[in-house]
């Protein structure tokens, strides 16, 4: 009899454990939802640069987008406060997607402002995250790289649209960045995982951007702007 009650007691403690886990998950999900909302707002805002009439207003739009990042930092801090110490990877799946999206947005914003590629540390800084796992809630390296790859696709689209808007210099700059990105990714030994799959798509982006540059150069468009 004593044995039976021991067993029941033990299973009751597991039930308690499972319940508390579910509670934590729900809290995290709630916090992540807020972050996703903000990420969507930033995305919508940055999408407007594809509009022909907005091509001149890029700096202004970037400034506005930059304003959101303090809010993002707060929301990440909120998520971090819900995650127990040293259990980042237990719940990582909840914010993995939105983190990839946000590192894409950070990289895109950085490109629009500086015409270069953002580095890991700067992305983490923009999102208010740490680089090293031991220092606290951190930005996973693979999430950051995933963001870079998403940005390459977006830049390719931007190249098409800037040609439409009469900006013939932009594709050349974009080509340079995407080529650099490709060279960088070539240094990595990727496993057969989601990052590898996403990286395999980079060559199509590169191909497309090279075609655009080709189109411009055979027509002699790459040397001049619309005003000339």
């Amino acid at each position, binding site marked *: 009899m004593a*044995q*039976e009650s*021991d*067993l*029941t007691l*033990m*299973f009751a403690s*597991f*039930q308690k*454990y*499972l*319940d508390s886990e*579910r509670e934590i998950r729900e809290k995290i999900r709630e916090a992540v939802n807020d972050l996703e909302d903000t990420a969507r707002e930033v995305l919508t805002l940055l999408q407007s640069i594809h509009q022909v009439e907005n091509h001149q207003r890029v700096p202004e739009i970037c400034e506005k987008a930059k304003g959101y990042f303090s809010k993002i930092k707060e929301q990440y801090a909120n998520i971090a406060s819900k995650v127990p110490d*040293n*259990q*980042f*990877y*237990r719940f*990582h799946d909840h914010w993995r997607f939105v983190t990839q999206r946000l590192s894409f947005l950070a990289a895109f914003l950085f490109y629009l402002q*500086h*015409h*270069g*590629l953002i*580095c*890991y540390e700067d992305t983490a800084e923009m999102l208010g995250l740490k680089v090293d*796992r*031991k220092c606290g809630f951190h930005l996973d*390296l*693979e999430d950051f*790289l995933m963001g870079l790859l998403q940005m390459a696709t977006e830049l390719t689209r931007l190249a098409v649209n800037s040609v439409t808007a009469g900006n013939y*210099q932009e594709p*050349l*700059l974009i080509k340079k960045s995407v080529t*650099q990105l490709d*060279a*960088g*990714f070539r*240094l*990595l*030994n*990727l*496993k057969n995982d989601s990052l590898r799959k996403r990286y395999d798509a980079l060559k199509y982006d590169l191909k497309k951007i090279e075609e655009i540059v080709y189109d411009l*150069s055979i027509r002699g468009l*790459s*040397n001049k702007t619309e005003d000339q």
Partner: protein
Amino acid sequence: MAANPPALTLKEQNEKNSNSTPESASTTDIDSDLLENFRTYQVKIDARHDKYERIVKLGRDITIESKRIIFLLHRNASGDNENILGQTDTKFKELLRTKFLPLAKELEAEDPYQYIKAYTFGVQEFIEAVSFYFYIKENRLVTLNEIQSMLNFKKIQNNSSEEDKTDNYENEYLVFVRPVDFLLGVADLTGELMRMAIKSISSGDVETPFRICNFLREIHTNFLGFGNTCRETSLKMLTMKQSLEKVETACYMMKVRGSEVPKHAIVDVLHSADRENTHFSSDTYG
């Protein structure tokens, strides 16, 4: 020659381009900076993958060795109980020393959940083996605490051998066991117990099947309580139920036919009764 002109113009464009943009003075610097950055990413990613692979290897070794221990324990029907338990004991010690300790060292200062997928199956199989051992030895279910303390290498006493002393035990190493892993390991245990029950019938043991049947019933009832809270266990529940039903049928057969059919023939009777539940399988081989 024909290919030259476009290449030239491209180069010219690039030069022109670099003259027109202000940042371009340090183009090569930016380039090498970027590649330098990616080299650091490479190092980090490689380190992570290597570690993962090493852990997968250890996890697989643990799985294999645990399965062997389970097979060894199944041989106890011959009545050579003490001997087999002794052998198992040494095997466990060996497994802990050669596999779990390196695993614990790999996991030191890491987030235990980061590499969990690489070794969770090994741990589950280990739990299955340990709980099977405990059931045979003490007729009870092992607790999570007991398993966790086996995998906590601070508590291991050095057996005064030279080799052990070189291992640095001052640091605390441990392989973290998720409660979920424990539950899944226990769910697998029910399959082993079913096999043991059926086997003991054929060897003429009339007590063991009933004892096991009660035990299985108890575990099954407790698992039912989890319902939707744990997704991983609900799949195992199906198999567990089949195991339980098989043992219950066996016990029923023993009661009903036990007086008229010779013991060794009951197993055949059971198999014919099993036709209704044809989709029966032990998850030991899964």
